[in-house]
Protein backbone atom coordinates (compact mmCIF):
# COMPACT_ATOMS: atom_id res chain seq x y z
CA UNK A 1 0.00 0.00 0.00
CA UNK A 2 2.93 2.25 0.75
CA UNK A 3 3.94 2.86 -2.86
CA UNK A 4 0.42 3.74 -3.90
CA UNK A 5 0.17 6.95 -1.88
CA UNK A 6 0.58 9.16 -4.95
CA UNK A 7 -2.51 7.65 -6.53
CA UNK A 8 -4.57 8.63 -3.49
CA UNK A 9 -2.99 12.06 -3.74
CA UNK A 10 -3.91 12.25 -7.43
CA UNK A 11 -7.52 11.37 -6.71
CA UNK A 12 -7.75 13.83 -3.81
CA UNK A 13 -6.31 16.69 -5.86
CA UNK A 14 -8.53 15.96 -8.87
CA UNK A 15 -11.57 15.86 -6.57
CA UNK A 16 -10.45 19.16 -5.08
CA UNK A 17 -10.05 20.63 -8.56
CA UNK A 18 -13.52 19.45 -9.55
CA UNK A 19 -15.28 20.54 -6.35
CA UNK A 20 -13.51 23.87 -5.86
CA UNK A 21 -13.51 24.49 -9.60
CA UNK A 22 -17.27 24.02 -9.82
CA UNK A 23 -18.44 25.48 -6.50
CA UNK A 24 -16.55 28.75 -6.18
CA UNK A 25 -18.88 31.37 -7.65
CA UNK A 26 -18.07 33.90 -10.32
CA UNK A 27 -17.77 37.59 -9.53
CA UNK A 28 -20.73 39.70 -10.61
CA UNK A 29 -20.65 41.08 -14.11
CA UNK A 30 -22.66 42.87 -16.75
CA UNK A 31 -24.30 40.64 -19.33
CA UNK A 32 -26.31 42.96 -21.52
CA UNK A 33 -27.22 46.60 -21.88
CA UNK A 34 -30.20 48.18 -23.60
CA UNK A 35 -29.72 51.86 -24.29
CA UNK A 36 -32.49 54.38 -24.91
CA UNK A 37 -30.52 56.83 -27.06
CA UNK A 38 -27.02 57.69 -28.11
CA UNK A 39 -26.94 61.46 -28.63
CA UNK A 40 -25.38 63.73 -26.00
CA UNK A 41 -27.27 66.58 -24.33
CA UNK A 42 -30.17 64.47 -23.12
CA UNK A 43 -31.12 62.01 -20.39
CA UNK A 44 -30.21 58.49 -21.42
CA UNK A 45 -31.59 55.46 -19.64
CA UNK A 46 -30.01 52.05 -19.87
CA UNK A 47 -31.47 48.75 -18.83
CA UNK A 48 -28.64 46.63 -17.48
CA UNK A 49 -28.79 42.83 -17.13
CA UNK A 50 -26.28 41.72 -14.56
CA UNK A 51 -24.87 38.32 -13.71
CA UNK A 52 -24.52 36.79 -10.24
CA UNK A 53 -26.05 39.75 -8.44
CA UNK A 54 -28.75 39.77 -5.75
CA UNK A 55 -30.22 43.24 -5.86
CA UNK A 56 -33.29 43.99 -3.79
CA UNK A 57 -35.72 46.80 -4.49
CA UNK A 58 -34.49 49.84 -2.59
CA UNK A 59 -30.76 48.96 -2.74
CA UNK A 60 -28.52 51.88 -3.45
CA UNK A 61 -26.48 51.24 -6.58
CA UNK A 62 -24.03 53.72 -8.02
CA UNK A 63 -22.81 53.60 -11.58
CA UNK A 64 -20.64 55.76 -13.76
CA UNK A 65 -19.36 55.98 -17.30
CA UNK A 66 -15.62 56.37 -17.65
CA UNK A 67 -15.40 59.35 -20.02
CA UNK A 68 -11.62 59.58 -19.97
CA UNK A 69 -8.82 59.00 -17.47
CA UNK A 70 -9.88 61.90 -15.27
CA UNK A 71 -13.57 62.46 -15.85
CA UNK A 72 -16.48 60.25 -14.86
CA UNK A 73 -20.20 60.66 -15.50
CA UNK A 74 -22.29 59.36 -12.58
CA UNK A 75 -25.79 58.07 -13.01
CA UNK A 76 -28.49 60.39 -11.69
CA UNK A 77 -30.82 57.62 -10.60
CA UNK A 78 -31.02 53.88 -10.44
CA UNK A 79 -34.10 51.70 -10.26
CA UNK A 80 -33.92 48.04 -9.40
CA UNK A 81 -36.26 45.85 -11.44
CA UNK A 82 -35.06 42.41 -10.48
CA UNK A 83 -32.21 40.72 -8.59
CA UNK A 84 -30.24 40.88 -11.84
CA UNK A 85 -31.79 43.76 -13.70
CA UNK A 86 -31.84 47.48 -13.16
CA UNK A 87 -32.42 50.76 -14.91
CA UNK A 88 -29.86 53.56 -14.81
CA UNK A 89 -30.30 57.07 -16.09
CA UNK A 90 -27.50 59.41 -17.09
CA UNK A 91 -27.86 63.14 -17.63
CA UNK A 92 -25.39 63.45 -20.50
CA UNK A 93 -23.99 66.97 -21.09
CA UNK A 94 -24.01 68.27 -24.65
CA UNK A 95 -20.22 68.40 -24.76
CA UNK A 96 -18.06 65.42 -23.83
CA UNK A 97 -14.26 65.59 -23.50
CA UNK A 98 -13.85 62.75 -26.00
CA UNK A 99 -13.97 62.06 -29.72
CA UNK A 100 -17.22 62.32 -31.67
CA UNK A 101 -18.47 58.77 -31.12
CA UNK A 102 -17.07 56.55 -28.41
CA UNK A 103 -17.91 53.36 -26.50
CA UNK A 104 -17.63 54.11 -22.80
CA UNK A 105 -16.85 51.72 -19.98
CA UNK A 106 -19.69 51.24 -17.51
CA UNK A 107 -18.65 50.76 -13.87
CA UNK A 108 -21.15 49.68 -11.25
CA UNK A 109 -20.55 49.75 -7.53
CA UNK A 110 -22.61 48.93 -4.49
CA UNK A 111 -21.95 47.83 -0.93
CA UNK A 112 -23.07 44.23 -1.49
CA UNK A 113 -21.17 43.33 -4.66
CA UNK A 114 -18.25 45.74 -4.85
CA UNK A 115 -17.25 47.31 -8.15
CA UNK A 116 -17.58 45.55 -11.50
CA UNK A 117 -17.47 46.84 -15.04
CA UNK A 118 -17.96 46.21 -18.72
CA UNK A 119 -15.67 47.86 -21.28
CA UNK A 120 -17.22 49.49 -24.38
CA UNK A 121 -20.67 49.19 -22.87
CA UNK A 122 -22.43 52.47 -23.68
CA UNK A 123 -22.12 54.32 -26.99
CA UNK A 124 -22.45 58.11 -26.98
CA UNK A 125 -22.28 60.55 -29.89
CA UNK A 126 -21.84 64.32 -29.83
CA UNK A 127 -22.42 66.85 -32.57
CA UNK A 128 -19.10 68.64 -32.27
CA UNK A 129 -15.86 68.10 -30.39
CA UNK A 130 -14.54 70.77 -28.01
CA UNK A 131 -12.53 69.18 -25.26
CA UNK A 132 -11.50 72.45 -23.54
CA UNK A 133 -15.03 73.70 -23.19
CA UNK A 134 -16.37 70.27 -22.25
CA UNK A 135 -13.89 70.04 -19.37
CA UNK A 136 -14.57 73.54 -18.07
CA UNK A 137 -18.34 73.10 -18.14
CA UNK A 138 -18.30 69.55 -16.75
CA UNK A 139 -21.00 69.18 -14.05
CA UNK A 140 -19.82 68.82 -10.46
CA UNK A 141 -20.51 65.35 -9.07
CA UNK A 142 -20.06 63.46 -5.83
CA UNK A 143 -17.26 60.95 -6.04
CA UNK A 144 -18.28 57.45 -4.88
CA UNK A 145 -15.60 55.41 -3.15
CA UNK A 146 -14.87 52.00 -4.68
CA UNK A 147 -15.34 49.49 -1.90
CA UNK A 148 -14.08 46.00 -2.64
CA UNK A 149 -15.88 43.02 -1.20
CA UNK A 150 -13.93 40.17 0.35
CA UNK A 151 -14.46 36.57 -0.68
CA UNK A 152 -13.02 33.99 -3.04
CA UNK A 153 -14.55 34.32 -6.46
CA UNK A 154 -13.46 33.60 -10.00
CA UNK A 155 -13.24 36.54 -12.38
CA UNK A 156 -16.14 37.28 -14.68
CA UNK A 157 -15.08 37.44 -18.33
CA UNK A 158 -17.29 38.32 -21.23
CA UNK A 159 -17.78 35.43 -23.72
CA UNK A 160 -16.34 32.90 -21.26
CA UNK A 161 -18.68 33.37 -18.28
CA UNK A 162 -18.89 30.12 -16.26
CA UNK A 163 -16.76 28.25 -18.79
CA UNK A 164 -13.69 29.95 -17.31
CA UNK A 165 -13.75 26.89 -15.05
CA UNK A 166 -12.55 24.82 -17.99
CA UNK A 167 -9.13 26.25 -17.21
CA UNK A 168 -8.96 23.47 -14.59
CA UNK A 169 -9.99 20.64 -16.92
CA UNK A 170 -8.90 21.52 -20.46
CA UNK A 171 -5.53 23.17 -19.88
CA UNK A 172 -4.14 20.51 -17.48
CA UNK A 173 -4.65 17.89 -20.22
CA UNK A 174 -1.91 19.62 -22.21
CA UNK A 175 0.35 20.09 -19.21
CA UNK A 176 -0.11 16.43 -18.24
CA UNK A 177 0.60 15.40 -21.83
CA UNK A 178 3.90 17.28 -21.86
CA UNK A 179 4.96 15.79 -18.51
CA UNK A 180 3.96 12.27 -19.57
CA UNK A 181 5.80 12.58 -22.88
CA UNK A 182 8.82 13.94 -21.03
CA UNK A 183 8.77 10.81 -18.88
CA UNK A 184 8.45 8.71 -22.06
CA UNK A 185 11.55 10.43 -23.41
CA UNK A 186 13.44 9.74 -20.18
CA UNK A 187 12.58 6.03 -20.42
CA UNK A 188 13.66 6.05 -24.07
CA UNK A 189 17.02 7.47 -22.99
CA UNK A 190 17.23 4.80 -20.30
CA UNK A 191 16.58 2.15 -22.92
CA UNK A 192 19.36 3.43 -25.16
CA UNK A 193 21.77 3.45 -22.22
CA UNK A 194 20.74 -0.01 -21.10
CA UNK A 195 18.55 -2.03 -23.48
CA UNK A 196 16.11 -3.58 -21.01
CA UNK A 197 12.76 -4.30 -22.63
CA UNK A 198 10.90 -3.01 -19.56
CA UNK A 199 12.22 0.50 -20.30
CA UNK A 200 10.88 0.27 -23.82
CA UNK A 201 7.52 -0.93 -22.54
CA UNK A 202 7.41 2.00 -20.10
CA UNK A 203 8.21 4.47 -22.87
CA UNK A 204 5.54 2.94 -25.10
CA UNK A 205 2.87 2.95 -22.37
CA UNK A 206 3.65 6.53 -21.39
CA UNK A 207 3.51 7.66 -25.02
CA UNK A 208 0.13 5.95 -25.44
CA UNK A 209 -1.27 7.82 -22.45
CA UNK A 210 0.33 11.03 -23.73
CA UNK A 211 -1.51 10.58 -27.02
CA UNK A 212 -4.76 9.91 -25.13
CA UNK A 213 -4.26 13.15 -23.18
CA UNK A 214 -3.51 15.04 -26.39
CA UNK A 215 -6.67 13.72 -28.01
CA UNK A 216 -8.65 14.66 -24.89
CA UNK A 217 -7.04 18.11 -24.97
CA UNK A 218 -8.17 18.54 -28.57
CA UNK A 219 -11.69 17.26 -27.90
CA UNK A 220 -12.24 19.30 -24.73
CA UNK A 221 -10.81 22.33 -26.49
CA UNK A 222 -13.21 21.70 -29.33
CA UNK A 223 -16.19 21.62 -26.97
CA UNK A 224 -15.03 24.82 -25.29
CA UNK A 225 -14.35 26.55 -28.61
CA UNK A 226 -17.81 25.65 -29.91
CA UNK A 227 -19.42 27.46 -27.00
CA UNK A 228 -17.18 30.51 -26.97
CA UNK A 229 -15.61 31.06 -30.40
CA UNK A 230 -18.59 29.45 -32.13
CA UNK A 231 -16.67 26.79 -34.03
CA UNK A 232 -15.41 23.27 -33.35
CA UNK A 233 -12.09 23.83 -35.05
CA UNK A 234 -10.38 26.74 -36.76
CA UNK A 235 -7.23 26.64 -38.84
CA UNK A 236 -6.71 30.31 -38.13
CA UNK A 237 -5.70 29.47 -34.59
CA UNK A 238 -2.03 28.56 -34.35
CA UNK A 239 -2.25 26.62 -31.08
CA UNK A 240 -4.79 24.24 -32.58
CA UNK A 241 -2.63 23.52 -35.60
CA UNK A 242 0.46 23.11 -33.51
CA UNK A 243 -1.15 20.68 -31.06
CA UNK A 244 -2.62 18.63 -33.90
CA UNK A 245 0.84 18.38 -35.46
CA UNK A 246 2.30 17.32 -32.10
CA UNK A 247 -0.29 14.54 -32.07
CA UNK A 248 0.66 13.53 -35.63
CA UNK A 249 4.29 13.22 -34.51
CA UNK A 250 3.27 10.75 -31.83
CA UNK A 251 0.79 8.84 -34.01
CA UNK A 252 3.74 8.28 -36.32
CA UNK A 253 5.63 6.75 -33.35
CA UNK A 254 3.16 3.87 -33.17
CA UNK A 255 3.06 3.36 -36.93
CA UNK A 256 6.84 3.30 -36.95
CA UNK A 257 6.81 0.61 -34.28
CA UNK A 258 4.41 -1.56 -36.22
CA UNK A 259 6.51 -1.26 -39.37
CA UNK A 260 9.69 -2.80 -37.92
CA UNK A 261 9.76 -6.58 -37.55
CA UNK A 262 12.76 -7.27 -35.34
CA UNK A 263 11.87 -6.63 -31.67
CA UNK A 264 15.24 -5.37 -30.55
CA UNK A 265 15.61 -3.05 -33.54
CA UNK A 266 12.02 -1.87 -33.12
CA UNK A 267 12.66 -0.85 -29.52
CA UNK A 268 15.90 0.92 -30.39
CA UNK A 269 14.61 2.87 -33.40
CA UNK A 270 11.41 3.76 -31.52
CA UNK A 271 13.47 5.08 -28.58
CA UNK A 272 15.60 7.18 -30.90
CA UNK A 273 12.49 8.56 -32.61
CA UNK A 274 10.76 9.23 -29.28
CA UNK A 275 13.67 11.34 -28.01
CA UNK A 276 13.90 13.26 -31.27
CA UNK A 277 10.13 13.77 -31.36
CA UNK A 278 10.09 15.34 -27.90
CA UNK A 279 12.98 17.64 -28.73
CA UNK A 280 11.21 18.73 -31.93
CA UNK A 281 7.89 19.14 -30.13
CA UNK A 282 9.20 21.62 -27.55
CA UNK A 283 9.81 24.48 -30.04
CA UNK A 284 6.60 23.50 -31.84
CA UNK A 285 4.44 23.91 -28.74
CA UNK A 286 6.27 26.66 -26.89
CA UNK A 287 8.20 28.80 -29.38
CA UNK A 288 6.24 28.86 -32.64
CA UNK A 289 2.91 30.03 -31.15
CA UNK A 290 4.68 32.99 -29.58
CA UNK A 291 6.19 34.04 -32.91
CA UNK A 292 2.81 34.29 -34.60
CA UNK A 293 1.16 37.68 -34.42
CA UNK A 294 -2.28 36.96 -33.04
CA UNK A 295 -4.02 34.18 -31.25
CA UNK A 296 -7.31 33.65 -29.51
CA UNK A 297 -5.53 31.73 -26.77
CA UNK A 298 -4.04 33.66 -23.88
CA UNK A 299 -0.29 34.02 -23.67
CA UNK A 300 0.64 34.12 -27.37
CA UNK A 301 1.44 36.70 -29.98
CA UNK A 302 3.38 38.99 -27.68
CA UNK A 303 0.95 38.75 -24.77
CA UNK A 304 2.58 38.68 -21.36
CA UNK A 305 1.88 34.98 -21.01
CA UNK A 306 -0.45 32.83 -19.06
CA UNK A 307 -0.47 34.99 -16.00
CA UNK A 308 -1.16 38.61 -15.24
CA UNK A 309 -4.59 39.48 -16.61
CA UNK A 310 -5.59 35.99 -17.68
CA UNK A 311 -4.93 34.12 -14.49
CA UNK A 312 -5.78 35.78 -11.21
CA UNK A 313 -4.95 34.44 -7.77
CA UNK A 314 -8.22 32.61 -7.17
CA UNK A 315 -7.85 30.78 -10.48
CA UNK A 316 -4.27 29.88 -9.60
CA UNK A 317 -5.43 28.36 -6.32
CA UNK A 318 -7.23 25.67 -8.29
CA UNK A 319 -5.27 25.70 -11.55
CA UNK A 320 -1.84 24.67 -10.22
CA UNK A 321 -3.18 21.81 -8.07
CA UNK A 322 -5.30 20.72 -11.05
CA UNK A 323 -2.17 20.36 -13.18
CA UNK A 324 -0.46 18.26 -10.50
CA UNK A 325 -3.57 16.17 -9.91
CA UNK A 326 -4.29 15.36 -13.56
CA UNK A 327 -0.61 14.64 -14.20
CA UNK A 328 -0.38 12.16 -11.31
CA UNK A 329 -3.65 10.61 -12.43
CA UNK A 330 -2.28 10.14 -15.94
CA UNK A 331 0.81 8.47 -14.52
CA UNK A 332 -1.51 6.04 -12.80
CA UNK A 333 -3.19 5.20 -16.13
CA UNK A 334 0.22 4.78 -17.74
CA UNK A 335 1.35 2.51 -14.93
CA UNK A 336 -1.65 0.24 -15.43
CA UNK A 337 -0.87 -0.07 -19.12
CA UNK A 338 2.81 -0.69 -18.33
CA UNK A 339 2.02 -3.46 -15.87
CA UNK A 340 -0.28 -5.12 -18.35
CA UNK A 341 2.31 -5.03 -21.14
CA UNK A 342 4.98 -6.38 -18.78
CA UNK A 343 2.70 -9.25 -17.80
CA UNK A 344 1.87 -10.07 -21.41
CA UNK A 345 5.53 -10.19 -22.33
CA UNK A 346 6.18 -12.58 -19.46
CA UNK A 347 3.28 -14.81 -20.46
CA UNK A 348 4.40 -14.89 -24.07
CA UNK A 349 7.94 -15.78 -23.06
CA UNK A 350 6.73 -18.59 -20.85
CA UNK A 351 4.38 -20.21 -23.31
CA UNK A 352 6.43 -19.87 -26.44
Amino acid at each position, binding site marked *: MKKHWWKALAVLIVIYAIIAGLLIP*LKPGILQIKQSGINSGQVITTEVNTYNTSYKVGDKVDAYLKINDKVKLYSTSSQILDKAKLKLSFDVPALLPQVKSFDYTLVMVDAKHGPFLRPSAVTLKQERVDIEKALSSWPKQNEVALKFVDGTKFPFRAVLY*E*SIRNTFYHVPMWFAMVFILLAAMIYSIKYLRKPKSSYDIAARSLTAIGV*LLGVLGCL*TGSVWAK*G*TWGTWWTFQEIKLNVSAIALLIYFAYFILRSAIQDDEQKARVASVYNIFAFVAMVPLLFVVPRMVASSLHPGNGGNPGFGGEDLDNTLRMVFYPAIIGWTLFSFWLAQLLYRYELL*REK*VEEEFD
Partner: protein
Amino acid sequence: MKKYTFILILILINSVLSAQEEAKISLHSSGKIYLVVGVLITIFIGIVAFLIYLERKLNSLEEQINNDE
Protein backbone atom coordinates in the same frame (compact mmCIF):
# COMPACT_ATOMS: atom_id res chain seq x y z
CA MET B 1 -21.65 -10.68 -19.88
CA LYS B 2 -19.46 -8.51 -22.06
CA LYS B 3 -22.45 -7.56 -24.15
CA TYR B 4 -24.45 -6.46 -21.13
CA THR B 5 -21.63 -4.33 -19.75
CA PHE B 6 -21.35 -2.65 -23.10
CA ILE B 7 -25.07 -1.92 -23.24
CA LEU B 8 -24.96 -0.65 -19.67
CA ILE B 9 -22.13 1.73 -20.55
CA LEU B 10 -24.04 2.92 -23.62
CA ILE B 11 -27.13 3.63 -21.51
CA LEU B 12 -24.96 5.49 -19.01
CA ILE B 13 -23.33 7.65 -21.65
CA ASN B 14 -26.69 8.28 -23.25
CA SER B 15 -28.32 9.38 -20.01
CA VAL B 16 -25.39 11.67 -19.23
CA LEU B 17 -25.60 13.18 -22.70
CA SER B 18 -29.33 13.77 -22.45
CA ALA B 19 -28.78 15.36 -19.02
CA GLN B 20 -26.29 17.63 -20.75
CA GLU B 21 -28.93 18.52 -23.33
CA GLU B 22 -31.32 19.49 -20.53
CA ALA B 23 -28.63 21.54 -18.85
CA LYS B 24 -28.01 23.25 -22.16
CA ILE B 25 -31.60 24.40 -22.42
CA SER B 26 -31.90 25.86 -18.94
CA LEU B 27 -28.42 27.32 -18.56
CA HIS B 28 -27.57 28.35 -22.07
CA SER B 29 -28.79 31.89 -21.69
CA SER B 30 -27.03 32.58 -18.42
CA GLY B 31 -23.61 31.18 -17.80
CA LYS B 32 -22.40 28.60 -20.34
CA ILE B 33 -21.90 26.13 -17.48
CA TYR B 34 -22.88 23.39 -19.95
CA LEU B 35 -19.46 23.85 -21.52
CA VAL B 36 -17.81 22.81 -18.27
CA VAL B 37 -20.14 19.82 -18.05
CA GLY B 38 -19.30 18.92 -21.65
CA VAL B 39 -15.57 19.10 -21.02
CA LEU B 40 -15.80 16.98 -17.86
CA ILE B 41 -17.91 14.39 -19.68
CA THR B 42 -15.42 14.30 -22.53
CA ILE B 43 -12.60 13.58 -20.10
CA PHE B 44 -14.70 10.94 -18.37
CA ILE B 45 -15.49 9.24 -21.68
CA GLY B 46 -11.78 9.31 -22.51
CA ILE B 47 -10.94 7.52 -19.26
CA VAL B 48 -13.75 5.01 -19.84
CA ALA B 49 -12.45 4.37 -23.35
CA PHE B 50 -9.03 3.61 -21.85
CA LEU B 51 -10.61 1.24 -19.34
CA ILE B 52 -12.50 -0.61 -22.09
CA TYR B 53 -9.31 -0.86 -24.16
CA LEU B 54 -7.35 -2.23 -21.21
CA GLU B 55 -10.10 -4.65 -20.28
CA ARG B 56 -10.26 -6.09 -23.77
CA LYS B 57 -6.51 -6.60 -23.77
CA LEU B 58 -6.74 -8.27 -20.36
CA ASN B 59 -9.51 -10.52 -21.64
CA SER B 60 -7.37 -11.78 -24.49
CA LEU B 61 -4.44 -12.32 -22.12
CA GLU B 62 -6.63 -14.32 -19.75
CA GLU B 63 -7.86 -16.38 -22.67
CA GLN B 64 -4.31 -17.05 -23.75
CA ILE B 65 -3.29 -18.20 -20.28
CA ASN B 66 -6.36 -20.43 -19.89
CA ASN B 67 -5.92 -22.01 -23.31
CA ASP B 68 -2.28 -22.81 -22.77
CA GLU B 69 -2.99 -24.42 -19.44
